[in-house]
């Protein structure tokens, strides 16, 4: 399967979810982020790379440091999907309501 980079891949990994939670509060440097994890700096940097490719975080240069910042709008894509999926079930169930009602009326 071709590697795809999207929002769902970004949040599929527990470490990446923790990184997201961390930088949701404030933009951070890779070093500051890595301090919160037991894994190697290299592993954290790999996760940051994936998050960047998923367009969920962006890098900003500030002096000599690079800060990683969360793109909140991108997170909304998740809500959007869940909403669509929920809607399918809603429609499905409303259709079932009608089927049940029709059968009930026939049996009367």
């Amino acid at each position: 399967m071709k590697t795809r980079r999207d929002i769902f891949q970004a949040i599929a990994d527990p470490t990446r979810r923790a990184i997201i939670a961390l930088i949701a509060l404030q933009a951070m440097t890779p070093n500051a982020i890595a301090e919160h994890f037991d894994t190697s700096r290299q592993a954290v940097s790999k996760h940051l790379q994936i998050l960047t490719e998923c367009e969920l975080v962006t890098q900003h240069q500030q002096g000599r440091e690079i800060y990683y910042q969360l793109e909140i709008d991108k997170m909304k894509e998740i809500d959007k999907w869940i909403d669509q999926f929920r809607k399918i079930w809603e429609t499905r169930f409303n259709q079932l309501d009608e089927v049940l009602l029709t059968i009930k009326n026939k049996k009367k």
Partner: protein
Amino acid sequence: MNSNLKFDFVVNKENNTVNIKREFAADLDLVWEAWTTPELLDQWWAPKPFLSKTKIMNFEVGGRRFYAMISPEGQEMWAIQKYTSITPKTNFKFLNAFADNDENPQLPGSDWDLNFSEQNGTTSVHISIYNESRERMEQMIEMGFKEGFTMTLNELDNLLSTLIK
């Protein structure tokens, strides 16, 4: 939809599970029948404008439902639901897998667990869908999005036709 009927929909991405609860204004016998009879399932399973077409269905442990969701453009998306456990009018479980039109499954699939109970003439159905892989969850997301998007367009059509009148 009767607004007194409960509807819960929770997606838990951390453990790849979707939990859905819904109440129906009908007795357990009827609701169970609607979920386990192909002729009835095809009347409501596909969110309009999609159509549901069940080709094979034997509702028994080890049996299966082989069906397609058909898009308004005529594109068929086949799936197999293999029944792994049935407790009449209480619970049934199946393994769901997308498939080609020759019934070759695309594994891994998802595990569905459906519970039925009745109280004072209202029947509640609780569905738990577990995806063993993230890829499968994503595929479900994509298909859901596709259907959801078509539905949205359809609603727009309805709205437009109302406005034109």
